[in-house]
């Protein structure tokens, strides 16, 4: 069950794996996610967005960054190994429809879940422009795939080592000014999504974001993933993961992501230099 059939390293700490999961491959739609648990009593459950699926080959593709103890353990698995527990597809699919012009904004690893959405938007007859950003050149992933589906791809890096030296919000504002998209989809670190939503707000452009909050069961049972959207409490696992970025209470959401900072820092010490947590990345 859930055998890994392909594994690639997309960048220094980002991996792409294809995993056998016949039912999920058949049922999943862009925007949905899975929860994995690597077996035994003590491993945690972690949500990962489905980056792609092949119903014929009965596989799903997961892209993840080795940032914490569990993602490092996942990265240590190779082709032929199995992910003991894999649940999905969870959450509601993206509202893919013909909007006209769609800007897809991806930050870091967020480019992976953005890919099937960009593809879906293109297939629905939209003109699609993609903005993708990362800290530096080595962390830009899936550029070729994105170029294959999008009408235009703008690459930015924080340090200017590749593409434009900018944050994704700079070209996003320009697109809002000049190209006037009908819909924006932004997926990346919470801080990026917060500022992407702030950037589009003055233009009144519908902005979809995909939240990756702390989660346990993923079925609506625990409520750990709750966020405030438009003043109402929503569960990311069942009501999301996608929400109207203009309605999300970002500050509360980001604070909640830091609920276990002290424990995570201790886990850091345990796991010494293996882990590199970036600002804003859960």
């Amino acid at each position: 069950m859930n055998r890994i059939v392909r594994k690639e390293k997309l960048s220094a700490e980002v991996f792409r794996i294809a995993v056998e999961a016949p039912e999920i491959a058949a049922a999943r739609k862009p925007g949905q996610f899975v929860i994995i648990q690597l077996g035994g009593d003590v491993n945690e459950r972690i949500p990962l967005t489905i980056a792609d699926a092949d119903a014929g080959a009965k596989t799903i593709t997961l892209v993840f960054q080795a940032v914490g103890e569990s993602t490092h353990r996942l990265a240590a698995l190779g082709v032929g190994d199995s992910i003991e527990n894999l649940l999905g597809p969870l959450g509601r699919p993206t509202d893919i429809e013909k909007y006209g012009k769609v800007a897809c904004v991806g930050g870091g690893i967020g480019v992976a879940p953005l890919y099937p959405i960009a593809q879906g938007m293109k297939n629905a007859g939209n003109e699609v422009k993609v903005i993708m950003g990362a800290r530096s050149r080595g962390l830009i992933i899936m550029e070729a795939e994105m170029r294959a589906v999008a009408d235009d791809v703008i690459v930015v890096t924080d340090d200017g080592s590749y593409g434009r030296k900018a944050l994704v919000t700079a070209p996003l504002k320009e697109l809002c000014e000049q190209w006037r998209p009908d819909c924006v989809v932004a997926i990346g670190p919470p801080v990026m999504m917060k500022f992407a939503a702030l950037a589009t707000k003055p233009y009144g452009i519908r902005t979809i974001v995909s939240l990756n909050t702390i989660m346990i069961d993923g079925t609506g049972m625990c409520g750990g993933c709750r966020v405030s959207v438009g003043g109402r409490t929503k569960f990311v696992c069942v009501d999301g993961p996608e929400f109207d970025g203009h309605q999300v209470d970002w500050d509360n959401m980001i604070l909640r992501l830091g609920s276990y900072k002290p424990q995570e820092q201790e886990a850091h010490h345990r796991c010494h230099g293996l882990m590199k947590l970036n600002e804003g990345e859960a």
Partner: protein
Amino acid sequence: MHVSSEELDKLAGDILGRFENAAPSPKERAQIPAQEMPAQDPVERVRNMREVALGYTPSQVRAESLRCLQCRNKPCIQGCPVSIDIPAFIAEAAKGNFARAAEIINESSLLPAICGRVCPQENQCQKYCTLGKMLKDIDKSVAIGRIERFVADYARENRCEKVPHVAAETGMRAAVVGSGPASISAAADLRREGHGVVMFEALHKAGGVLVYGIPEFRLPKAIVRHELDNLKAMGVQIRLNFLVGKTRRISDLMGKDGFDAVFVGSGAGLPKFLNIPGENHVGVFSANEYLTRSNLMKAYDIGAARTPMFASRRVAVFGGGNVAMDSARTAKRLGAGTVTVIYRRTGAEMPARKEEVAHAGEEGVEFMFLHAPLEITADDRGRVSGVKLIECRLGEPDASGRRSPVEIPGSEKHCAYDTVIVAIGNASNPLIKATTEGIDVNRHGNFIVNEETCETTLPGVYAGGDIVLGAATVIQAMGQGRKAAKAMNAYLAAKRQVRA
């Protein structure tokens, strides 16, 4: 004052000595003191997760069983949702025929080791006990649950359980959604008839609320595992990591996957919150989340578990049921300095089992009655700093018959806490309803079923447990699972005839 198991055993031995040669008269039976449940010393147990109640010794269970008057009208049975022949198994237990006693229970109940531990006996069988009525004290009723627990543990530990007989394969297939008490009992009864049974569980471990909800110190997980192993030995297949409604829909199970009938025992599974300001601050948890972290994810095993537990010093728990007690006692074990259960009514109205409330008190859990929360406050980092409370008094009885709390204007106060756990119950998880056409629900989202058969409004689909009853007990869920399975067995037999 904590009394050890050895001391309690000796006292029971003295009682048995008195009746060695002649059975006690009814008057003598009534005079035998109620046997106290041996428990771990509270000072010790707040530092471990092991089971608190240690179980009767053989002498104690026989002494307690001798208290049963063996009434002819057997009023206790009417209090049992699955109608166990209580006086009969107690009579065998009194004689020391524990294996035979277990057999009698198993005729009606599949999970006695679990029910003996978690049933609210004071509201069920023991409520009707003639002895308790005679002595004008429900706490002096025969301790039916404790005897049941002993007998079930004896049968398991001495491997004298009978694996239920499974009839020849019928070729019919039933899907069971969820793996909690309702589903376990439905699966067993369906399988006994020779139907192929597949149980679908969303989490990575089976057992439902018995595993993610009820803590180890109240229900050891090894017991749940044993019951699930028995199911597997009967040939029930358990598929983990399968969320019906998402991985496959009920219509797929019935249309494409060849299931002839479906039982839905997916539980309540949607935590209720207080609907007050500040509920999303860091440090506010649903009891479901708090307990799932500790129980399912083993977060109490700090250092080994990869799921973290919030570090708490001052904990407020809202609610008055078993889940509130479980949360408070878990917080205490995880090192919280003070844990306060805050309840809008008084101790008398608390729905929790008496024994759990007593155990919580012994462990240092504090109770603040007649207070309701108004707002959860936070510090400048968004972390819980306390709760604004208001005092209440008891007003007129509400629909449930309990007196409702009435807020007293001007009595607001602020109390400092760093953690808030909300344990005020669950609503129905809407997932299956939302993905299945033809299942009608009531205004609470509970499935509407035929009371006799547990069939939903969608033919061939049955349901039981919390998804139907709202918040029910383990044995009520089990009772519904059995009722549904009986009707499903008839449905499947008829369907098979048509097919043949």
